[in-house]
């Protein structure tokens, strides 16, 4: 049994410790917002937060998350991620949408580290998240928009 904390809730999962976090989230816990893209940490679709870092869940064994906090796209609730959700809607960012949960999880880490990012900061922070629809310009606009929004009260 492995003890996990996902989006603030505690879970005990009975899986092989080498199972990638992605499959525990999707198959064991039914949290399907996190996507499988390449399975080898190349595309960023599976990005979730582990103790605040934007890890690639497809190559990270669940043993790595024992005793730590995972946050997925379903768990977005703090100020930054709320602003990102609003900005994403306002800019109408997604096309097919498959990469977008990974994009938002990466953008959240960027804004936490760099509250007012330049275009270059966005390039550096987001270059690991591939979008096959080519929504990069809208991703960039949405991050700038989220950065300019007034901080909101956290629940």
């Amino acid at each position, binding site marked *: 049994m492995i003890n996990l904390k996902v989006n603030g809730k505690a879970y005990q999962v009975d899986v092989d410790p080498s199972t990638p976090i992605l499959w525990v989230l999707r198959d064991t816990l039914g949290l399907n917002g996190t996507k499988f893209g390449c399975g080898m940490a190349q595309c960023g679709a599976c990005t979730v937060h582990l103790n605040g870092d934007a890890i*690639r869940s497809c190559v990270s064994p669940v043993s790595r998350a024992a005793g730590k906090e995972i946050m997925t796209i379903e768990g977005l609730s703090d100020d930054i991620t709320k602003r990102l959700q609003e900005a994403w809607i306002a800019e109408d960012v997604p096309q097919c949408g498959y990469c977008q949960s990974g994009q938002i999880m990466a*953008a959240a880490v960027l804004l936490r580290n760099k509250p007012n990012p330049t275009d270059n900061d966005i390039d550096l922070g987001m270059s*690991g998240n591939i979008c096959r629809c080519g929504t990069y310009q809208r991703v960039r606009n949405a991050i700038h928009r989220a950065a300019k929004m007034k901080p909101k009260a956290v629940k």
Partner: protein
Amino acid sequence: MKKNTGDSRFSIKYFLYFVLALGFITAVAQPFNNKKNKTISPENKAIAAATITDATTINDKSDADKKREEESANAFNEVYKVLMHPRCMNCHPSGDAPLQGDDSHIHVQNVTRGPDGKGLYAMKCSNCHQSENVAGLNMPPGNPNWHLPPANMKMIFQGRTPAQLARQLKDPKQTGKSMTQLLEHVEHDKLVLGGWNPGDGRTLPPMSHEEFAKNFREWIEKGAAIPQ
């Protein structure tokens, strides 16, 4: 023509006389010369002998030093082959992005070094690189402390000649390490050893880690010579 031949014979004759006379004078003068040598006091002779002995020793030492220096430089040339291999050089790039593959292309996610060498924002090394290699062909290799040299101590290998790299490694201001610490890094750092366990689909450096460390030690112990 005849006159010229006669003149020439005349000159040769006088030249021969001159040579014979010079030979005679030299022979006669020689004993005087020996006598002059005998006038050197025993004390002076001893000093002269000592000087000669010292000079001989210095010459011997210099030969030994030269040999040592050559061996040291040769050992570094072996070390250099490993340092410039993609498994080592890819994490010692001249720019701020790590390199990938045997062709040392820029890391495809365009990862950036960051101040501590561990990446930036959502692009931290450990986001993908686990504490050990992920199983499978060309999957991310792993280490608990995966990183590039930090921004204030970049330790660039890419593009360095053997002499430049040897000078750089000898300069604690550029390595942040003493030679002893450098040797420790080369012999025991798991990130260095990881070069010989790079995961499926990656080539190995051109010699074993043991051989590499042996050459590195020899380079240092024989004076850390700068190869030509």
